[in-house]
């Protein structure tokens, strides 16, 4: 059974204090790993897809990396507007069904 575990559950940073969020997964035949951002009362907003170990993607202050067992979301010099819940997910490993298995998320709070 596919499993996704995120840590920490919650992270509080000061503005400008860089850190990383972790997403570890157990899935046979990884067909990608997705990062989403979710603001309160809204649906998840797509950030990145990573497909193979060693791959990295960047967007503004965020950089996502992937190894064979985990992914990291690095946040460099965060700002208060980066406060949100960050979710990672992996797609089902069979056929054309890409249903996602999500981790429970990391609630990031960035204080000014």
């Amino acid at each position, binding site marked *: 059974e596919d499993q996704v575990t995120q840590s920490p559950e919650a992270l509080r940073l000061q503005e400008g204090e860089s850190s990383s969020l972790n997403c570890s997964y157990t899935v046979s035949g990884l067909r990608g790993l997705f990062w989403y951002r979710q603001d309160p009362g809204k*649906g998840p907003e797509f950030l990145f897809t990573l497909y193979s170990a060693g791959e990295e993607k960047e967007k503004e202050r965020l950089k996502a990396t992937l190894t064979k067992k985990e992914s990291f979301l690095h946040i460099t010099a965060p700002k208060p507007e980066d406060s949100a819940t960050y979710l990672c997910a992996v797609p089902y490993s069979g056929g054309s069904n890409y249903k996602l298995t999500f981790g429970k998320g990391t609630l990031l709070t960035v204080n000014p």
Partner: protein
Amino acid sequence: GAGVSQSPSNKVTEKGKDVELRCDPISGHTALYWYRQSLGQGLEFLIYFQGNSAPDKSGLPSDRFSAERTGGSVSTLTIQRTQQEDSAVYLCASGSPPGGDTQYFGPGTRLTVL
């Protein structure tokens, strides 16, 4: 372009009543997914549509839950005889696998069963 839309944004109902939740996917997306997000739980898969057919209904929690999709577009999730444990945010996502496997989510419908 227009994203995924869902209606209503909020629904309050009484235990035992039926509810219908609607999802309008991104135009041209062949795949449509329903998920449920409960307090303290992660997002849970409910059902997957490819076109108008639902090859995977494995996440529907009981036979009170059903969904349909018409015209390869709009989908409706119906919950019959609602229970308090059905209270959650119901999220819809669409995508175009296998070439475009990213799923784009709507804003969700918050369902409260009193």
